[in-house]
C-alpha cells in the first residue's frame, strides 16, 4: 500500500471541501455525457426550453469544453408553446451554434398522421413525432432531462434506459445498472434513453441554476400575465383554447414551475422574481411541481408509466 500522490495534504483537504453535493452531481452528469460520446454513433439531446433541459445542455457544454458540443439538439414542438419558450430556444441555439432538429406535432395534425384529442391536450401526441425523428435521423442515444424525483415510475428508470424498435420501455426487463459502468449496447433499430439528471431533485436544479447563473426562459420568473383558472391551475390563453365563457381572464403575478404543453401546464401565483426568491419558494412549497401544474399526470395512478411504455420520455 502506498500513500496518495499529492502536493500536500492541505491541497487535498481544500479540494474535498469544494466537492459538495452539487459538485458530485455535476461530475456524475459530465461522466455520463462523456460515456455516451465515447460509445455511441449519433446521440442527440432533447431540448424543450425548460429548466431541466437547459441545465442538461449547460452540463453537456461543460463536459466537452473547450471543444464544441458533439451532439445535435432535438425539440419536439407541440405547437402549444408559450412564445417566450420558443424565443429562448432560438436564442440558445444561436448562442452556442447548435444544430437544431424540430419534430412538429402540428405537421402531423396537418397531414392527418395524428388526430387532435377531444381534450385538446397534446403532450400524449408528442410520442409519434419523437419516435419518427429518432428513427429518421438514426439517433442511437437520446438524452433527456428526466429526474427520478419527478414521479413514481420515473423513480424506477435507469440512467441508461434501453428502448426497443418501437421506443417502448419495459420496466420488468431493465438491465441491472452496476457501479458507474453503463451498458449502452443495443441492436440496430433500438436506442438508449440517457438521463444524466437522474439523481437530481427540483431543489438541486434550482440551486445549480443559481450557482452557475444559468440563463432560463423568462416564464420561470414572476411576471404579470393575463390568466384564467381551470382545474385549480392558472392557464395562459392561447391557440389551445380558453378561456371558455365561464372562465374569467384576470391579470396576476405568476411564474411557471415546468414548461410543457400550454393546454395542460399551468402557472402558479408567485412574486418570486430572482433565483434566490425561487429557491426559497420551492423549498417551502407543499406541492410537487407536477402535482401543482401538470394536468396530464393527474389522469390516472399510472399515467406516466403508461406513456413511457408507449415510447414517451
Amino acid at each position, binding site marked *: 500500500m502506498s500513500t496518495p500522490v499529492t502536493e500536500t495534504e492541505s491541497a487535498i483537504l481544500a479540494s474535498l471541501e469544494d466537492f459538495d453535493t452539487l459538485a458530485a452531481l455535476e461530475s456524475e452528469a459530465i*461522466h455520463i455525457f462523456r460515456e455516451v460520446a465515447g460509445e455511441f454513433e449519433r446521440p442527440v439531446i432533447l431540448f424543450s426550453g425548460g429548466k431541466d433541459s437547459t441545465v442538461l445542455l449547460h452540463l453537456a457544454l461543460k463536459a466537452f469544453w473547450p471543444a464544441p458540443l458533439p451532439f445535435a439538439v432535438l425539440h419536439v414542438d407541440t405547437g402549444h408553446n408559450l412564445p417566450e419558450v420558443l424565443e429562448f430556444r432560438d436564442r440558445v441555439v444561436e448562442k452556442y451554434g447548435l444544430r437544431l432538429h424540430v419534430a412538429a406535432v402540428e405537421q402531423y395534425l396537418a397531414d392527418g398522421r395524428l388526430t387532435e384529442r377531444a381534450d385538446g391536450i397534446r403532450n400524449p401526441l408528442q410520442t409519434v413525432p419523437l419516435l419518427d425523428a429518432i428513427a429518421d435521423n438514426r439517433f442511437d442515444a437520446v438524452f433527456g432531462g428526466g429526474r427520478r424525483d419527478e414521479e413514481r415510475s420515473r423513480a424506477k428508470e435507469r440512467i441508461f434506459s434501453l428502448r426497443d424498435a418501437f421506443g417502448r420501455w419495459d420496466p420488468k426487463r431493465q438491465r441491472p445498472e452496476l457501479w458507474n459502468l453503463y451498458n449502452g449496447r443495443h441492436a440496430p433499430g433500438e436506442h438508449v434513453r440517457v438521463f444524466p439528471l437522474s439523481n437530481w431533485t427540483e431543489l438541486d436544479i434550482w440551486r445549480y441554476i443559481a450557482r452557475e447563473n444559468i440563463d432560463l426562459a423568462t416564464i420561470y420568473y414572476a411576471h404579470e400575465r393575463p390568466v384564467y383558472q381551470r382545474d385549480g391551475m392558472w392557464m395562459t390563453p392561447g391557440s389551445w383554447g380558453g378561456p371558455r365563457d365561464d372562465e374569467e381572464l384576470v391579470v396576476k403575478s405568476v411564474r411557471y414551475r415546468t414548461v410543457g404543453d400550454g393546454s395542460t401546464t399551468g402557472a402558479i401565483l408567485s412574486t418570486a422574481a430572482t433565483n434566490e426568491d425561487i429557491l426559497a419558494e420551492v423549498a417551502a412549497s407543499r406541492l410537487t411541481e407536477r402535482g401543482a401544474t401538470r394536468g396530464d399526470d393527474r389522469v390516472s395512478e399510472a399515467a406516466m408509466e403508461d406513456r413511457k411504455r408507449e415510447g414517451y420520455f
Partner: protein
Amino acid sequence: MSDLLRLATAGSVDDGKSTLVGRLLFDTKSVLADQIDAVTRASVDRGLSTPDLSLLVDGLRAEREQGITIDVAYRYFATPRRTFVLADTPGHVQYTRNTVSGASTAQLVILLVDARKGVIEQTRRHAAVMALLGVPRLVLAVNKIDLVDDAAGVFAEIAAEFTELTTRLGWAPEDVVEIPVSALHGDNVASRSENTPFYDGPSLIEYLESVPVDADSSGPHQVGLRFPVQYVIRPRTAEHPDYRGYAGQVAAGAVSKGDEVVVLPSGIRSTIERIDTPDGELATAQPGRSVTLILTDDVDISRGDIIASAIDAPEPLDSFDATVCWLGDKPLRPGARLLLKHGTRTTQAIVGALLERFDEQNLAADPDPESLALNDIGRVSVRVADPVVADDYRVNRHTGSFLLIDPSGGNTLAAGLVGDVLTAVEVGTEAGS
C-alpha cells in the same frame, strides 16, 4: 466534503420495506401534499382506514396489483444535515440482481427483518451479497417490533445473531448497528420511541445523519491515481488549435499538478501539466471528480487507457480470477465468450474455469461447479483480448469492478469483482465459526 449519502435498502418480501421507505420520506417531510393526497385517495379506494405509506414508493402497475416491489427505485430525501439518495431494492429472490445493482454504489445498506421472523435465509443471502460488494456499513432495522411480546428479548436475540453473522462476513462491530423500529407507527424512525425503553441508541434518521461518510466510498485502502480515459478532447478550433485533453472521472487516488504518471497499458511516462475544468484549473482532484488532464508530453492516449500514478501503477492483466454474480437468465458455462467492460474499456473475454460456487445458505463453497445459474455467486477465471488495468476489488470498488455483457443481445450478464473476493468472505467464515 460531500454531504451526500448513497444508501440502499434490502430485505425479504413482506417485511415492510416499502412502508419503511415511505415512512422515511414522510418523516423527513420529503413527501408533498399532493403525493399524500394521492396515496390517501388510493388507500381509501382499497378500503383502508389509514394511508398506506408503501403506495408512495410502489409506482408500477404490476407492483400495485401484486402489492410487492419489482424493480429498484431511487428516492431522494434530505434533512438539514444531509442529502440522501436511496436505492429501494426488491426482496424477491428472483430480483436479487436488482439488489446487487442498488448495493453496488451504496455507502450504507439498511437490511430489514420482521421481528416475528428474525434473521432468515434471505437476510443471510443479502448480507453475503453486501459483504462481497464491499458495502462499508450496515444497519439492521428490526421492523414490526410492536407486534412481538417481550420486544427487549426478541431484539437482543436478533441483534446478537446479526452481529455474529456480520462479524463472520468481515464487518467491524462499529460498522454495523441494529435498531428496533415500527415502520407502520414510526417508532425509532425519525425520533426515539418511548415504546422501546430497552433501546438507548439513535433513531434510524439520527444514525443516517451522523454516520461518517468517506468522501471516497470506493474502498478502504488508499491507492494512487487511477484515471480511466473516457474521451479525448481536441477542439481544433481557431481559439484552441493545439488543445489535447484527456477527459475522465478520477476513479481512485488523487491527482495534482506536477504528479508523475504512467499511461497504461502502454507504460509511457509523463507529468500532469494541469487539471482543466470549464470553471478554471484545479490544483488537485479527488475521486468522483470529472476533470480533463493535460500532460507535459505529446503521447498517444485513447479511450480505454488508464492514467495511473507512477509510484504504484497496477500491472495490466491478460487473465485474472474474479468473483461474479450471475445475472443472466441462461446459466454461465465454462468457455463462454463474452464482452467485458472495465472502466472505459470494453474487450472480448473468455470465462475459462468455473472455480467455485458460493452457497449463500451456509456460506460454503462448492468447488468445480458445472454452471452458474441466475443469482448464483461464484469464482471464475477470465482471459481478456486486451489487457485490463485493474485493482483487487477489496482495494478499490471502481477499478476492481467489471460487467460481463452478452455480445449478441447486449444484456448485462454478470457483476464482476476482480480478485479472490469470494475466498476472502469464506476465510472470514472459518475464522468466525
